[in-house]
């Protein structure tokens, strides 16, 4: 992991055609600091996104689950795949949605990752803000590669 802009997965092979993040940047790669890495992921809420047609017919509002998916896609873009497996969400420890994320708004997620120096799992603490700086959500989740108990 090195600091700077990262190419997003377009489309993400595990979620095509649902792209939940527009831009991803590595702000701080703290590989020497216990595997701490800080990312910034940006997503503009667009009524034309394939999952927003019915959410809602007269009010475009990003479903919170796509904010979570955006974190997953940002982490996948940064950490990449290993043996064909990208990081996926194993546990959503907490999610608080504070304000609606309406059509046209740009949502910026600051993602603090720990454990990026180890092979299996990372923890993510996420603060999401809209363009005027107001917090719209906070998330805490655990991501890992592949299903831990797949047969």
């Amino acid at each position: 992991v090195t600091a700077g802009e990262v190419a997003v997965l377009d489309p993400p092979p595990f979620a095509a055609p649902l792209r939940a993040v527009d831009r991803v940047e590595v702000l701080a790669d703290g590989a020497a600091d216990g595997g701490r890495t800080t990312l910034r992921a940006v997503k503009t809420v667009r009524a034309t996104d394939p999952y927003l047609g019915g959410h809602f017919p007269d009010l475009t509002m990003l479903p919170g689950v796509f904010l979570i998916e955006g974190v997953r896609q940002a982490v996948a873009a940064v950490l990449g795949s290993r043996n064909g497996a990208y990081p996926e969400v194993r546990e959503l420890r907490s999610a608080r949605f504070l304000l609606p994320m309406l059509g046209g708004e740009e949502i910026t997620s600051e993602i603090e990752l720990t454990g990026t120096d180890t092979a299996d799992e990372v923890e993510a603490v996420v603060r999401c803000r809209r363009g005027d700086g107001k917090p719209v959500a906070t998330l805490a989740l655990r991501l890992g590669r592949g299903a831990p108990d797949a047969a």
Partner: protein
Amino acid sequence: VTAIAGATAYGLEHRARIVRDLGDTWIFTGETRVGDAVVLEVGSAMTALRPAAVLREAAP
């Protein structure tokens, strides 16, 4: 979340239990099963009902 090797279609059964009902806000718990296997557990979730006008007023 558990993947089931070889499966291409899943029959999902959601079981939700409301543990608190506050009128326009609910706290619930539950799980999702495929057959006898629990594939998703929800410890605690809260959902609230708000009119669309309240959401529009929150716009910047």
